Protein backbone atom coordinates (compact mmCIF):
# COMPACT_ATOMS: atom_id res chain seq x y z
CA UNK A 1 0.00 0.00 0.00
CA UNK A 2 2.90 2.34 0.77
CA UNK A 3 4.41 1.66 -2.67
CA UNK A 4 1.05 2.37 -4.30
CA UNK A 5 0.59 5.61 -2.34
CA UNK A 6 4.15 6.79 -3.06
CA UNK A 7 3.78 5.99 -6.77
CA UNK A 8 0.44 7.82 -6.95
CA UNK A 9 1.62 10.88 -5.02
CA UNK A 10 5.18 11.27 -6.26
CA UNK A 11 5.64 9.55 -9.61
CA UNK A 12 2.30 9.55 -11.46
CA UNK A 13 1.81 12.44 -13.89
CA UNK A 14 -0.64 15.30 -13.30
CA UNK A 15 -3.93 15.07 -15.16
CA UNK A 16 -4.30 17.98 -17.61
CA UNK A 17 -7.70 19.35 -16.48
CA UNK A 18 -7.93 18.36 -12.80
CA UNK A 19 -4.28 18.80 -11.84
CA UNK A 20 -3.05 17.48 -8.51
CA UNK A 21 -6.45 16.57 -6.95
CA UNK A 22 -6.85 13.86 -9.61
CA UNK A 23 -4.41 11.78 -7.52
CA UNK A 24 -7.31 11.08 -5.15
CA UNK A 25 -8.48 8.67 -7.87
CA UNK A 26 -5.68 6.29 -6.80
CA UNK A 27 -7.46 5.62 -3.51
CA UNK A 28 -11.05 6.34 -4.62
CA UNK A 29 -11.20 3.75 -7.42
CA UNK A 30 -9.45 0.96 -5.40
CA UNK A 31 -11.85 1.66 -2.50
CA UNK A 32 -14.93 1.17 -4.64
CA UNK A 33 -13.48 -1.88 -6.44
CA UNK A 34 -12.70 -3.48 -3.07
CA UNK A 35 -16.17 -2.59 -1.77
CA UNK A 36 -17.67 -4.41 -4.76
CA UNK A 37 -15.43 -7.44 -4.07
CA UNK A 38 -16.60 -7.43 -0.43
CA UNK A 39 -20.22 -7.20 -1.56
CA UNK A 40 -19.70 -10.14 -3.94
CA UNK A 41 -18.54 -12.15 -0.90
CA UNK A 42 -21.60 -10.96 1.07
CA UNK A 43 -23.87 -12.03 -1.80
CA UNK A 44 -22.34 -15.50 -2.22
CA UNK A 45 -22.13 -16.08 1.55
CA UNK A 46 -25.75 -14.98 2.06
CA UNK A 47 -27.09 -17.16 -0.76
CA UNK A 48 -25.18 -20.21 0.51
CA UNK A 49 -26.29 -19.54 4.08
CA UNK A 50 -29.99 -19.35 3.13
CA UNK A 51 -29.66 -22.38 0.86
CA UNK A 52 -27.62 -24.71 3.09
CA UNK A 53 -28.03 -23.11 6.54
CA UNK A 54 -24.24 -23.20 6.86
CA UNK A 55 -23.12 -21.01 9.77
CA UNK A 56 -19.66 -20.64 8.21
CA UNK A 57 -21.20 -18.87 5.22
CA UNK A 58 -23.12 -16.57 7.57
CA UNK A 59 -19.91 -15.65 9.38
CA UNK A 60 -18.21 -15.00 6.03
CA UNK A 61 -21.06 -12.75 4.83
CA UNK A 62 -21.22 -10.87 8.14
CA UNK A 63 -17.47 -10.22 8.17
CA UNK A 64 -17.44 -9.14 4.52
CA UNK A 65 -20.40 -6.78 5.10
CA UNK A 66 -18.46 -4.99 7.81
CA UNK A 67 -15.54 -4.52 5.43
CA UNK A 68 -17.88 -3.45 2.63
CA UNK A 69 -19.14 -0.60 4.85
CA UNK A 70 -15.52 0.37 5.57
CA UNK A 71 -14.61 0.55 1.87
CA UNK A 72 -17.85 2.30 0.82
CA UNK A 73 -17.14 4.89 3.54
CA UNK A 74 -13.66 5.40 2.04
CA UNK A 75 -15.23 5.77 -1.40
CA UNK A 76 -17.77 8.37 -0.26
CA UNK A 77 -15.30 10.41 1.78
CA UNK A 78 -12.48 10.38 -0.80
CA UNK A 79 -15.03 11.28 -3.50
CA UNK A 80 -16.33 14.20 -1.44
CA UNK A 81 -12.80 15.49 -0.84
CA UNK A 82 -12.10 15.23 -4.59
CA UNK A 83 -15.40 16.95 -5.41
CA UNK A 84 -14.61 20.14 -3.51
CA UNK A 85 -11.61 21.31 -5.60
CA UNK A 86 -12.84 19.83 -8.90
CA UNK A 87 -16.64 20.43 -8.79
CA UNK A 88 -16.65 23.19 -6.19
CA UNK A 89 -18.83 21.20 -3.79
CA UNK A 90 -18.37 18.37 -1.29
CA UNK A 91 -21.65 16.71 -2.29
CA UNK A 92 -24.35 16.87 -4.91
CA UNK A 93 -27.46 14.69 -5.30
CA UNK A 94 -26.09 13.22 -8.50
CA UNK A 95 -27.35 9.78 -9.58
CA UNK A 96 -24.08 7.95 -8.95
CA UNK A 97 -23.37 9.63 -5.63
CA UNK A 98 -26.91 9.07 -4.41
CA UNK A 99 -27.01 5.38 -5.39
CA UNK A 100 -23.64 4.87 -3.67
CA UNK A 101 -24.95 6.56 -0.51
CA UNK A 102 -28.01 4.25 -0.67
CA UNK A 103 -25.62 1.27 -0.89
CA UNK A 104 -23.86 2.51 2.27
CA UNK A 105 -27.20 2.83 4.11
CA UNK A 106 -28.26 -0.68 3.02
CA UNK A 107 -25.14 -2.31 4.50
CA UNK A 108 -25.13 -0.13 7.62
CA UNK A 109 -28.72 -1.43 7.99
CA UNK A 110 -27.36 -4.96 7.56
CA UNK A 111 -24.93 -4.41 10.45
CA UNK A 112 -27.66 -2.86 12.63
CA UNK A 113 -29.86 -5.92 12.05
CA UNK A 114 -26.93 -8.16 13.03
CA UNK A 115 -26.30 -6.14 16.19
CA UNK A 116 -29.95 -5.93 17.27
CA UNK A 117 -31.01 -9.43 16.34
CA UNK A 118 -28.21 -11.89 17.07
CA UNK A 119 -28.96 -15.52 16.36
CA UNK A 120 -30.49 -17.30 13.40
CA UNK A 121 -33.45 -14.94 12.91
CA UNK A 122 -31.18 -11.91 12.56
CA UNK A 123 -28.83 -13.90 10.35
CA UNK A 124 -31.68 -14.81 7.96
CA UNK A 125 -32.98 -11.23 7.81
CA UNK A 126 -29.46 -9.90 7.23
CA UNK A 127 -28.84 -12.48 4.48
CA UNK A 128 -31.91 -11.21 2.61
CA UNK A 129 -30.64 -7.61 2.95
CA UNK A 130 -27.19 -8.78 1.83
CA UNK A 131 -28.61 -10.32 -1.35
CA UNK A 132 -31.07 -7.53 -2.22
CA UNK A 133 -28.50 -4.79 -1.52
CA UNK A 134 -26.19 -6.08 -4.24
CA UNK A 135 -28.86 -5.14 -6.80
CA UNK A 136 -27.84 -1.51 -6.21
CA UNK A 137 -24.41 -2.11 -7.80
CA UNK A 138 -25.65 -2.29 -11.43
CA UNK A 139 -27.66 0.89 -10.74
CA UNK A 140 -24.48 2.63 -9.53
CA UNK A 141 -22.50 1.45 -12.55
CA UNK A 142 -25.11 2.34 -15.17
CA UNK A 143 -26.13 5.61 -13.51
CA UNK A 144 -22.95 7.28 -14.81
CA UNK A 145 -23.53 5.89 -18.31
CA UNK A 146 -27.28 6.18 -18.84
CA UNK A 147 -28.18 9.25 -16.78
CA UNK A 148 -26.94 12.83 -16.86
CA UNK A 149 -24.33 12.93 -14.15
CA UNK A 150 -21.45 15.07 -12.97
CA UNK A 151 -19.45 11.95 -12.13
CA UNK A 152 -16.67 11.09 -14.62
CA UNK A 153 -17.42 8.27 -17.03
CA UNK A 154 -15.70 4.91 -16.40
CA UNK A 155 -12.05 5.08 -17.49
CA UNK A 156 -10.81 1.62 -16.50
CA UNK A 157 -13.56 -0.99 -16.87
CA UNK A 158 -14.92 -0.13 -20.31
CA UNK A 159 -15.83 -2.51 -23.14
CA UNK A 160 -13.20 -0.84 -25.35
CA UNK A 161 -10.47 -1.10 -22.69
CA UNK A 162 -8.95 1.38 -20.20
CA UNK A 163 -8.78 5.02 -21.30
CA UNK A 164 -5.87 5.84 -18.99
CA UNK A 165 -2.25 6.08 -20.17
CA UNK A 166 0.11 3.42 -18.83
CA UNK A 167 1.77 5.97 -16.51
CA UNK A 168 -1.56 6.35 -14.67
CA UNK A 169 -2.92 2.84 -15.15
CA UNK A 170 0.13 1.13 -13.57
CA UNK A 171 -0.07 2.92 -10.17
CA UNK A 172 -3.85 2.50 -10.21
CA UNK A 173 -3.53 -1.27 -10.73
CA UNK A 174 -0.90 -1.48 -7.96
CA UNK A 175 -3.28 0.32 -5.59
CA UNK A 176 -6.26 -1.87 -6.58
CA UNK A 177 -4.19 -5.02 -5.91
CA UNK A 178 -2.92 -3.58 -2.57
CA UNK A 179 -6.48 -2.77 -1.45
CA UNK A 180 -7.70 -6.25 -2.44
CA UNK A 181 -4.84 -7.92 -0.56
CA UNK A 182 -5.64 -5.79 2.50
CA UNK A 183 -9.31 -6.80 2.19
CA UNK A 184 -8.44 -10.51 2.12
CA UNK A 185 -6.12 -10.11 5.14
CA UNK A 186 -8.71 -8.20 7.20
CA UNK A 187 -11.46 -10.62 6.14
CA UNK A 188 -9.36 -13.60 7.24
CA UNK A 189 -8.80 -12.10 10.70
CA UNK A 190 -12.45 -11.06 11.05
CA UNK A 191 -13.82 -14.49 10.04
CA UNK A 192 -11.43 -16.17 12.48
CA UNK A 193 -12.71 -13.92 15.27
CA UNK A 194 -16.33 -14.72 14.41
CA UNK A 195 -15.54 -18.46 14.45
CA UNK A 196 -13.87 -18.24 17.87
CA UNK A 197 -16.71 -16.11 19.23
CA UNK A 198 -19.33 -18.61 17.99
CA UNK A 199 -17.45 -21.48 19.65
CA UNK A 200 -17.27 -19.54 22.92
CA UNK A 201 -20.98 -18.66 22.82
CA UNK A 202 -21.79 -22.35 22.22
CA UNK A 203 -19.75 -23.29 25.31
CA UNK A 204 -21.48 -20.62 27.40
CA UNK A 205 -24.94 -21.69 26.21
CA UNK A 206 -24.12 -25.30 27.02
CA UNK A 207 -23.43 -24.46 30.66
Amino acid sequence: MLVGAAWALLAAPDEVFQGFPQRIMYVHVPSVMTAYAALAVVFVGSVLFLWRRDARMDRLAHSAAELAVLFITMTLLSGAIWGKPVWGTWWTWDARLTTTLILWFIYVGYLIVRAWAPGSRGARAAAVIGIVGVLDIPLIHWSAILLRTLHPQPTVFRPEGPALPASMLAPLVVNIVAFLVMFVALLTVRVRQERTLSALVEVLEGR
Partner: protein
Amino acid sequence: MGFVAAAYLVVAALFVGYALTLIGRQRLIAELADAVRPDQGRP
Protein backbone atom coordinates in the same frame (compact mmCIF):
# COMPACT_ATOMS: atom_id res chain seq x y z
CA MET B 1 -2.24 19.56 -2.28
CA GLY B 2 -4.26 19.89 0.95
CA PHE B 3 -7.24 18.03 -0.48
CA VAL B 4 -5.08 15.14 -1.68
CA ALA B 5 -3.34 14.92 1.71
CA ALA B 6 -6.75 15.00 3.43
CA ALA B 7 -8.09 12.17 1.24
CA TYR B 8 -5.07 9.94 1.88
CA LEU B 9 -5.15 10.70 5.62
CA VAL B 10 -8.87 9.85 5.82
CA VAL B 11 -8.27 6.52 4.08
CA ALA B 12 -5.30 5.77 6.36
CA ALA B 13 -7.32 6.74 9.44
CA LEU B 14 -10.16 4.40 8.42
CA PHE B 15 -7.71 1.50 7.99
CA VAL B 16 -6.06 2.22 11.35
CA GLY B 17 -9.44 2.66 13.05
CA TYR B 18 -10.68 -0.66 11.71
CA ALA B 19 -7.43 -2.39 12.72
CA LEU B 20 -7.88 -1.02 16.25
CA THR B 21 -11.45 -2.38 16.42
CA LEU B 22 -10.09 -5.80 15.39
CA ILE B 23 -7.44 -5.63 18.12
CA GLY B 24 -10.03 -4.54 20.70
CA ARG B 25 -12.37 -7.35 19.68
CA GLN B 26 -9.49 -9.83 19.87
CA ARG B 27 -8.82 -8.76 23.47
CA LEU B 28 -12.48 -9.20 24.38
CA ILE B 29 -12.48 -12.67 22.82
CA ALA B 30 -9.33 -13.57 24.79
CA GLU B 31 -10.97 -12.38 28.04
CA LEU B 32 -14.12 -14.36 27.23
CA ALA B 33 -12.01 -17.43 26.47
CA ASP B 34 -10.29 -17.07 29.85
CA ALA B 35 -13.68 -16.84 31.56
CA VAL B 36 -14.99 -19.91 29.74
CA ARG B 37 -11.88 -22.04 30.26
CA PRO B 38 -12.29 -24.81 32.88
CA ASP B 39 -10.79 -24.02 36.28
CA GLN B 40 -7.28 -25.16 35.41
CA GLY B 41 -4.64 -24.71 38.07
CA ARG B 42 -7.02 -23.42 40.71
CA PRO B 43 -6.75 -24.85 44.21
